């Protein structure tokens, strides 16, 4: 299970952003640990973990919405690019996509699941999942300044 830790964290970050990703990751693996003895031996562990992560990400988002309180002073927006020199522009561009597109991109491209599995997790049809990922990637190419020009992406 530990070997999937990095993949699940990338998925959580892509869907939720870095601030809430750690919580979703922890909740995912804790739930997985509890349920693991009941997992069939031939199950696809990564798809199973992503399915749990999807539900936990929704929980985390709801909890964050409940916590949110209106503030009089709007805090300073974080500077583009972190102090450690990491490029966060792409992560920011990803965060600006609709949730369904972020999910489709994360589950298909970062977790490597086929669109059929992505659709089973997010609901909706396989075609809709494929379209959400394609639309999301197309949008990223437009909004992320560092993106290369379209190179005929057709997965």
């Amino acid at each position, binding site marked *: 299970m530990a070997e999937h830790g990095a993949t699940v964290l990338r998925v959580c970050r892509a869907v939720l952003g870095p601030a809430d990703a750690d919580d979703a990751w922890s909740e995912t693996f804790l739930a997985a640990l509890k349920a693991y003895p009941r997992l069939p031996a031939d199950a696809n562990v990564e798809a199973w973990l992503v399915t749990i992560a999807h539900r936990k990400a929704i929980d985390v988002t709801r909890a964050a919405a409940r916590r949110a309180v209106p503030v009089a002073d709007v805090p300073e927006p974080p500077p583009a690019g972190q102090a450690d020199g990491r490029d966060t522009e792409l992560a920011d561009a990803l965060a600006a996509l609709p949730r369904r597109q972020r999910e489709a991109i994360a589950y298909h491209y970062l977790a490597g699941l086929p669109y059929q599995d992505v659709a089973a997790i997010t609901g909706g049809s396989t075609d809709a999942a494929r379209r959400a990922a394609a639309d999301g990637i197309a949008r990223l190419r437009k909004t992320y300044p560092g993106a290369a020009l379209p190179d005929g992406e057709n*997965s």
Partner: protein
Amino acid sequence: MTTNHEPDLLQGLPAVTEAELAVLHDRLAARADTDGVLDVAYRTLDTPVGSLLLAATETGLVRVAYPIEGHDQVLQALAARVSPRILNAPRRLDPAAREIDEYFAGQRHVFDLPLDYRLATGFRRKVLGHLPGIGYGTTASYATVAAAVGSPRAFRAVGTACATNPLPVVLPCHRVIKSGGDLGNYRGGPAAKQLLLNLEAA
């Protein structure tokens, strides 16, 4: 597992570092332990006989494994025989690691640890229970141990019990040798057995 070609673009996402994962993993191990879903905790410990794998259930130390046994195989066997809820969670092994360190430093002659004997049953379990009675710095023959557990002719079975001891070093099967003085076999290899006996003779 299908792998989908990741658009070049996504490779620009910040990488997940080992350090970040280690922090998350430690936090998970602590929470799993609190929630009672950490059935087996393990860690490795560097010693003069190589890197030992230490694993503990909530009952106690359940496995000590030598490098030649293949730590990955041992962990897989633990997952199958004890529980798949296994995590690298050193905290539960702190007392065992400390006592084993003290033993190799020559400062400890008797282990005082809760032990989980579930990986040994029947006659083997009986033999293991007798091993702590063979004092530090002394040896006993397979035949003597067989007699002591009430089956004088079962010295070969005693050999098997020692060879499959799930808790070597802590349960001192290295102190059981052949009647003629030959060291006999050892789970950690003959060199490890010799090293332990030399350590105790010093």
